[in-house]
């Protein structure tokens, strides 16, 4: 029974369309933070059991069905999954990890996710992210800043990027993305 739609808090600006980039607020998504020794076989087995995914390479992500495991740091991954699947992922991982020194937390409500897609999507993000987005590989994860907000960017496929940030910044970032995608300037970029 979740009732706080993230888009609800973020409707100060309407998302523009037809300018080469679309911005969407994604519905609630299951998210799990897991920390531990990513190189450990037991960790990999527990992650596989919980998500069906292998441990991703540095700054990469692995996908199985609608579950994606994102490399966040040397000892941390983030799991994107269905919202109601997150508790199960935590439980399965902790059970399989046994006595290993790990941490798995359901953080499905901590962050907001936006999707920016289209031919000019990377140009919208390049207005505030100091990252070579044009050369980002599909599946690549990049934690950086957008304007002054800490954000993660994953190139999900082709022209599409998913952006995640702490939920309290979602109104700001939504507005920021919409202003950037709405500028008629995209035509000459």
């Amino acid at each position: 029974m979740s009732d706080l739609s993230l888009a609800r808090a973020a409707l100060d600006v309407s998302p523009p369309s037809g300018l080469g980039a679309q911005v969407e607020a994604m519905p609630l998504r299951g998210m799990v933070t897991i920390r531990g020794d990513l190189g450990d076989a037991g960790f990999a087995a527990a992650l596989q059991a919980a998500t069906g995914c292998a441990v991703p390479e540095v700054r990469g992500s692995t996908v199985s069905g609608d579950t994606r495991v994102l490399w966040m740091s040397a000892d941390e991954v983030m799991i994107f999954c269905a919202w109601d699947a997150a508790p199960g992922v935590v439980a399965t991982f902790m059970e399989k990890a046994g006595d290993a020194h790990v941490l798995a937390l359901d953080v499905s409500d901590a962050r907001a996710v936006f999707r920016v897609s289209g031919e000019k999507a990377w140009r919208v993000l390049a207005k505030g992210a100091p990252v070579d987005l044009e050369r980002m590989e599909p599946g690549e994860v990049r934690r950086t800043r957008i304007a002054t907000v800490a954000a993660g960017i994953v190139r999900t496929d082709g022209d599409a990027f998913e952006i995640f940030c702490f939920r309290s910044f979602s109104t700001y970032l939504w507005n920021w993305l919409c202003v950037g995608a709405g500028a008629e300037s995209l035509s000459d970029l």
Partner: protein
Amino acid sequence: MTRLKSGGALIDRDTSVTFTFDGKPFRGMKGDTLASALLANGVRLVNRSYKYHRPRGVVTSGPEEPNALVNLGSGDRHEPNIRMTQIELFDGLEATSQNRYPSLKSDVGVLNAAASRLYPAGFYYKTFIHPRVAWKHLFEPVIRRIAGLGRAPTEADPDTYEHQYAFCDTLIAGGGPAGLLAARRAGEAGERVMLVEQTERWGGRLLTDDDAEIDGKPARDWIAGQVAALEAMENVTLRLRTCCSAAFDHGYALLYERRADHMTPTGPRHRLWRVRAGQIVGATGMIERPIPFYGNDFPGVMLASAVRDYVRLWGVAPGQRTVLYTTNDDGYRTALALHEAGCHVAAILDARADPVGILVEQAREAGLTVMSATGIGKVSGNRDGVREIQTVPLDRGDDVELGKRIECDCVAMAGGWSPVVHLYSHSGGKVVWDADRAMYRPDPENPPRDRHGEPYVRLVGGAGGALTTGDVLASVGGATPSVVAAAEQPARPVWFTPSQGKAALGGKHFLDYQNDVTVADIRLAAREGFESVEHAKRYTTLGMATDQGKLSNINGHAILAETLGKAMADVGTTTFRPPYTPISMGVIAGQEKGLLFKPVRQTALHDWHAEQGAEFEPVGDWRRPYRYQRDSEGREASITREIKRVREKVGLLDASTLGKIIVRGPDAGKFLDLMYTNMMSTLKPGKCRYGLMCNDNGFLMDDGVVARLDEQTFLCHTTSGGSDRVHAWMEEWLQTEWFDMRVLTANVTEQWSQFAVAGPNARALLERLEGDVDFAALPFMGFAEGTVAGMPVRVFRISFSGELSYELAVPTSYALSLWEALLDVGGDLGVGPYGTEALHVLRAEKGFIVIGDETDGTVTPHDVGMSWAVSKKKDDFIGKRAMERSDLTRQGRKQLVGLLTEDPGYVLPDGAHALSKDGERAIGHVTSTYHSPTIGRSIAMALIEGGMDRMGETVQIGIDRKTSVKAVIASPVFYDKDGARQNV
């Protein structure tokens, strides 16, 4: 009208453009700049100078223009100090002249010029020293009115701006022949290339000086071919109207794109490109130097290169009778261009004793008069411009007589060329004086170096010192195109031309047009001991105007060298600083203005709070409800109502902003024992403990309640706005000091929304919701997990108000449901929300501290009476060793106390100082101060020297210079000293 009947490579004679200058309508042509259009309309007086208010005209045709600054636009689009040589004309353009009153033609400030002998270098420094008070009230206001540039805009800028990050292997600044060729070479090598050009056209000087043949083609055809080839390359980005404003460390460059200045803006007006480049190639060309001679600032005295630009690019004759004063062969191109366009060239004065070169011969063959070893001694004219010049023989010392008078309306100065070395200088490269070519050029021994210590900025073409088209193209490297062009003879630099007898310094020989700095000023500075080039610059203001000395620096430094009897290389030059030309304030802000000015963090209930009349206050980046407005009640009334609700019934506080950090692992207890001053490892699962966190200076930095969730897992609450800082602090110790500890952390602040349910009716309210938490059984400082109203909750029985109180945390997506459920079931119990001001009064009544109010980074736990929270059993914790230092253990440190004013109705100002008995010294200050509705009087907390030993003492609190009030030092716990209310 001075528009020529034919010619003008950039203009479209079929498309007329209308604009106004000082309110008067004019017509120009598509492709004109404001400068070329005004010249075409015969307007030569465009500005008054900064200090002497002398009439000034256009000197150049590009970004180096010192004189022709205008106010552009009107109303909210008004913008001052724009160089009209860079303004592309569009229909409806409005420009007004600057620095004149009441009008350009009759300017009262010209009186300054009459008194100009009273304004030597350093005049302001010398004159307005005494009396001191007069500066602010008399001198400064008057000087500000007389001096100055454009009018600052007063309205908010309606335009939009943006940034764009970009990455490339090679960034090339400048779209002239060298830049185009460099881009071609890099593009063909498969590099990711950006080529930018500050004007709206490719080709640089080759568009004007098209006498060369490249690869067997006319220069313009060669340019068109290069541009077409580059446009076909996918790995090359080309951008016009984009100036490389700055080159910084490690390949970082800023590009200033004037995206919509030449049209009615659609989309952002300017764009700032923030580029990371592997290599930066500066193909930024050269700037021609003026020549300092008497009266070299009358309208109509222009750079020779600019004169021929106006003829060839815009089909405008800057004069009908022109005198050329040149130090080199290139200047002759101006005479030839004028002659070819049918304009009279009255004379060519060549500083050299025996000019020979191919261009010289062409001029002679055209029947033009060439006078060798001759310069301009004096220019005569009025506000409409030059009337005549008088020649002067060179090479006869300073004590010479003026020679022949030549009637003319235009003077073209060809003083030699200075490479635009700015990008090299910006990024740390050094320049060297090249005496043969009379120029500062980049020093190949001292290039800017990148993070690997390798050179990353290279100047090519004119910027690198190449003077001819052949040398320009050869400097790029790789296969050089074949060039057929006239050979040129060496130049003879002229830094100063005497006027009459003993150099006649009474007449004005201008160096810096914009700041009105003359040769005499530099000589005076040198005589007065300002021998360093940096000192002379600041004393005279040479090169410190908005043009940053693009025309004046080299001449000025040469005059200084000559006066000091030093070599040019020994005097040195000032360092060029970014930006190359001014950039708009708007583009620096980019997209982050208005709604996007600064990120604001909102809790999940933000909209609910707003709908309930919340007045928000910033807490860190968060916005929290300060109080809730009901009907028409006043501010005080609403706060009192909320306080009474908590003391008498039950209130709800959105405490979601409190930081929440999970700390887990076999060593978690051991780690927290080091992080907190008190013992955390002994905390039992299911229990909470209030903890203090210090830094290694022993000073308080954060506080909060720690709950032990299970044997290996702790949940640490932090202050609002402290979550990121404390999480980073924990990680810093784990990663850099105690990396052998098996501890993992996670910041879950935003996963959980948290509400305080506080007041005598709190338990009754919570028990009305269905669930499996036994609120009655949960002891003070207990923790439980369960389900309430179908939602997963964590319950902490903790109190920051002193009342019976529970804090409930739910996953944020349930926040509104739980909040509304609590309000729905408790109407008869008097439930309602309270804001942060009520929270603060409630905690102050109980003497609870707030980090940042009672602490300021110099306060220890002992200072605030919390020695009970500092463990004596632990070998170590952060801050322990520091607390043993003599200053932290000495008597007389400021200590936290309560203050009760003599007048119970008087609320002390926050921060007011407590005074020593003699009133001479501050012995402490008020840290929190409120009216307490609960006890019906004012209360305050303060840090007072030795305060804990001064209970009952009356102190004076200074209110302002004259007033002080009396207050009694008391315990900071004003209400329910035994804590009975929270233990029910």
